[in-house]
């Protein structure tokens, strides 16, 4: 155990926690609710110009020529740029930079960018964009991931259409199925979910007088964006500063580069005038990344007593035209495809495949949403077959801390699955489910109650470096400025950072000023993704805090003229041990340090704990930390139409120690609603490479009328490595609700929907089919 973790635990043991674990109000709450805090795309500047992107006309085509002369002749055009104007590398992508900044010889999806324009007004920019003439030779698009894998399919990239193939094998799968009393096999299809963040992609680029470049935009990892911009522009990254939107949402959709490189390119060609791009919702739908649609075939073997004995999974992920994080998504999916269980024999593989269907990338849940439905549905079917209780089956198969998981590795971090299941068994909705089910609102409606369990890794897998860093600076007025680069995009992580800092430094939360999403003032601390920001930022602050306390102690000792060992930290001051009359406050210390021209800024760095050995060919499994979760849900299905309401959700997360219960509830409720959207409503339909769903008219997300009662009951497994025992929350909260809703629909109607979203039409059809079956069996 590292020194800082010991220090924090000491702190925790010695005293009552003052801030951690309390529902401290959002430090950015008033500015957000009054609208005082602006989205980056809300700003306008004098002397500004508008940027616009020309997107591909075809989902797959050769470019034979680009003629920009007419656009350049537009009286209001400031500049027109194509691939020829890219000073550096014409590509981007977090792992594999296979996406062109501006296409040169081929377009692979309708979201591809071909040219850029800056003009005096948005309308002029749109006119100029339409004057660019691109000579295309359309090719037959590849529209199905499995078809793309077949030999002879048109190749999208030089290395073929299979971007990655990962496998995890443990035990003897054939022997497992031989020993099984029951075998279930089903194929599941998942939707192309859209992040639907409130602030669409956009922002500002400006070439400063000193030649440096300023980018302001909604983003999830400014430090990495900086590097991707630098690569394309052949610029020193230190001359690029990224300031991220303090709100607007991301959910993974802004983890990859969106428009940052376009902004940078345009800014270099507008003579120092600030350039703005702001995608319309329609352009965001076409150009923005989406969740990978998966086809997952799962075969599960179990014994009569409910023991899961074998699980075979084959998942095919449609990553669209470019990789982005598709390889990592597929790997995480496979790592989680057998659930938080100890199934002795597993054989799982995943393919990440290129098609001409837009672009897929990171999205809250990161592949686990798509695969959790297989094992959970099969457990539900096993319960139905054997008459065993579905929660008991899960308890029987769940691994405990120290157990070997289905992957074959010993899980040494905290595991709360059983506790979440016990809480589920005892919750009112489960205990009284038969009563609630009988209380249908109209006779042709049917209710169902079901539970499901899942888990989600916290932080990056083994293959990706994962570190955290924070700075703490003593300010003139005795307050502290805490810098963590990890963006605040609506999650509330900044409030948690203030709590951790105030706890460690024994000051008031109000005396902490948190700086985030600013690459100039903060150290690289990784991305706001992978459920990692509470854990990473919190622990980075807890690592920096002892350094600040050392600095404060030294100064206090000098002021009070005693030795350092006699100084003790008290609330908002330092005292001579045992004599509170001799004290100095933080403002006095600032003055002392200022006089001496000493630095008042300390840093803290740490590396996230990880497993020692990577599972062969797994693409980064296992993780060291996982969050665990059980959802219990009640649905009501209108059997005449197939319309389904989720009426009640009980959300039971194990995310380690809860640092801010109100923040946790926010995440839990938001995750539940996003899970409802995934299961029942949301899908971006693409046919022959063209988007059929164009905007929010037909992209259906839940509104307040689709929002059920949501109870959140955390069980707190203390994670010893975490800041004050915390793990992560953001993703697992939307996962088990998906199979839980599917099972509840089955409980209500007898119909199973394996193709999500479970729209009224699909549910109606499935109910009709169960009726037909009944007729046949009679």
């Amino acid at each position, binding site marked *: 155990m590292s020194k800082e973790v010991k220090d924090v635990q000491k702190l925790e043991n010695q005293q009552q926690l003052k801030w951690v674990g309390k529902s401290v109000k959002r430090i950015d709450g008033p500015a957000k609710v009054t609208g005082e805090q602006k989205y980056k795309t809300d700003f306008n500047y004098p002397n500004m110009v508008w940027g616009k992107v020309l997107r591909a006309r075809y989902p797959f085509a050769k470019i034979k020529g680009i003629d920009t002369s007419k656009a350049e002749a537009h009286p209001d055009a400031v500049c027109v740029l194509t691939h020829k104007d890219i000073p550096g590398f014409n590509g981007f992508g977090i792992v594999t930079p296979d996406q062109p900044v501006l296409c040169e010889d081929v377009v692979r999806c309708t979201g591809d960018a071909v040219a850029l324009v800056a003009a005096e007004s948005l309308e002029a920019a749109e006119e100029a964009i339409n004057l660019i003439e691109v000579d295309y030779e359309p090719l037959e698009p590849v529209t199905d991931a499995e078809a793309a894998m077949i030999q002879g399919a048109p190749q999208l990239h030089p290395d073929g259409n299979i971007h990655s193939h990962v496998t995890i094998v443990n035990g003897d799968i054939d022997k497992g199925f031989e020993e099984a009393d029951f075998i279930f096999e089903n194929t599941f299809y998942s939707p192309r979910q859209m992040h639907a963040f409130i602030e669409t992609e956009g922002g500002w680029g400006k070439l400063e007088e000193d030649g440096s470049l300023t980018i302001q935009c909604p983003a999830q990892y400014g430090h990495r964006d900086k590097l991707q911009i630098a690569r394309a522009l052949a610029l020193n990254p230190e001359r690029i500063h990224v300031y991220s939107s303090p709100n607007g949402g991301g959910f993974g959709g802004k983890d990859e580069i969106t428009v940052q490189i376009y902004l940078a390119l345009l800014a270099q060609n507008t003579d120092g005038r600030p350039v703005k791009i702001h995608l319309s919702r329609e352009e965001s739908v076409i150009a923005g990344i989406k969740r990978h649609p998966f086809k997952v075939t799962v075969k599960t073997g179990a014994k009569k007593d409910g023991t899961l004995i074998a699980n075979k999974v084959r998942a095919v992920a449609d990553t669209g035209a470019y990789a982005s994080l598709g390889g990592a998504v597929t790997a995480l999916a496979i790592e989680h495809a057998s659930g938080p269980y100890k199934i002795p024999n597993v054989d799982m593989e995943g393919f990440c495949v290129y098609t001409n269907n837009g672009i897929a990338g990171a999205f809250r849940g990161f592949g686990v949403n798509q695969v959790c439905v297989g094992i959970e549905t099969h457990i539900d079917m096993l319960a139905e077959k054997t008459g065993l209780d579905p929660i008991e089956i899960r308890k029987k198969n769940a691994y405990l801390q120290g157990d070997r998981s289905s992957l074959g590795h010993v899980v040494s971090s905290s595991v709360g699955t059983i506790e979440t299941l016990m809480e589920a068994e005892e919750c009112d909705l489960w205990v009284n489910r038969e009563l609630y089910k009988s209380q249908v609102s109209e006779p042709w409606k049917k209710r169902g109650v079901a539970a499901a369990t899942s888990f989600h890794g916290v932080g990056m897998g083994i293959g990706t470096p994962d570190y955290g860093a924070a700075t703490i600076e003593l300010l003139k007025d005795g307050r502290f400025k805490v810098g963590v680069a990890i963006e605040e995009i609506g999650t509330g992580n900044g409030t948690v950072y203030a709590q951790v800092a105030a706890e460690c430094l024994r000051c008031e939360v109000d005396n902490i000023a948190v700086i985030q999403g600013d690459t100039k003032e903060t150290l690289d601390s990784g991305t706001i993704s992978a459920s990692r920001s509470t854990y990473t930022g919190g622990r980075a602050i807890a690592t920096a805090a002892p350094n600040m306390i050392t600095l404060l102690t030294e100064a206090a000792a000098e002021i009070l003229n005693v030795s350092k060992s006699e100084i003790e930290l008290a609330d908002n001051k330092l005292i001579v041990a045992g004599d509170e009359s001799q004290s100095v406050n933080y403002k006095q210390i600032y003055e002392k340090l200022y006089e001496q021209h000493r630095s008042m800024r300390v840093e803290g760095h740490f590396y996230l704990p990880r497993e020692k050995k990577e599972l062969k060919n797994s693409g980064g499994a296992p993780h060291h930390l996982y969050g665990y979760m059980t959802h219990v849900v009640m649905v009501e299905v209108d059997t005449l139409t197939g319309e389904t309401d989720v009426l009640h959700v009980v959300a039971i997360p194990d995310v380690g120690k809860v640092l801010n219960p109100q923040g946790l509830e926010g995440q839990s409720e938001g995750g539940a609603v996003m899970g409802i959207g995934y299961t029942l*409503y949301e899908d971006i339909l693409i046919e022959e490479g063209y988007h059929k769903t164009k905007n929010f008219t037909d992209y259906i997300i839940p509104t307040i009328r689709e929002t059920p009662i949501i109870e959140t009951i955390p069980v707190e497994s203390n994670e010893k490595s975490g800041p004050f025992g915390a793990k992560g929350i953001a993703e697992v909260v939307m996962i088990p609700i998906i199979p839980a809703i599917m099972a509840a629909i089955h409980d209500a109607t007898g119909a199973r929907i394996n193709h999500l979203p479970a729209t009224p039409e699909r549910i*109606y059809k499935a109910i009709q089919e169960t009726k037909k079956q009944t007729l046949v069996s009679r």
Partner: protein
Amino acid sequence: MRVSEIDLVSPSSVDKCLYMLRDHDKTFRLLAGGTDAIVQMKDGKRIPDIWINIKNLTELRYIREEKEGIHIGPLTTHTDIVKSELLQKKADVLVGASMEVGAIQLQNMGTVGGNIGTASPAGDTIPALFVLDAQIELSSFNEKRTIPINEFFTGPGKTVQKQNEMITNIIIQPQSENEIGIFEKLGPRKAQSISIVNVAITLRMGSNPRECLEGKIAFGSVGPTIIRSKKCEKMLALGPLDDTAIQDIAGAAWKEVMPISDVRASAKYRRSMASALLERGLYRLMNRWDAR
């Protein structure tokens, strides 16, 4: 023409508005709530030379009962209809339909005249106006004509309204004491959704249990325009509306509609849903009638 260069004029009276519409050299669009017109403009569709802003013509915003029926001004918002005690009492089916238009924000902005003028096959108030035998008054500078609603629409987005005309009044037949109505909508979700299928039903009930003397049924979103379900209407009066009768009547609706497949639903599902919504609507109406 750039959107920013389109003129917008705001006539101060209906007469002045009709006077402007006489000009044949320019294209005009009337801007009431703007909940359809602005969306279409953003899509680059039906962009006029001049917008005529009629939002402020308060003389066209009224609900009043007169001898030949209830008069509803075309600039009456959906919210006005929802809140009208007169309509709650004598046109519950229209109140129900107006409550299902988009969401509260759209109901506050959108107008009944606009809903008629847009002529979407999925427009929520239109089936209700069908079963209330609405008459649409069209005015031009020189004349006035009144069109029964079943003759008003000629296809999706198309009506008999001429370029120089505007809707100036909507007259509906009030429901009597023994008349009940309901609007049923199936959308992809409860709020902010475009109908996959909708249906408006009114029934005139007799003195015997569940005795229906006469009824009207109008489906939306299952054909190029609203479809009156004449066969089902005749079946309503064949006997008491018990559960079996309801199922039989609803089953017949399937045959009277001719929907298409689109991004929201397949034609097959829409057909089944015409029956389902009629069945659900009749169940709910009978429960209400039994409990009155």
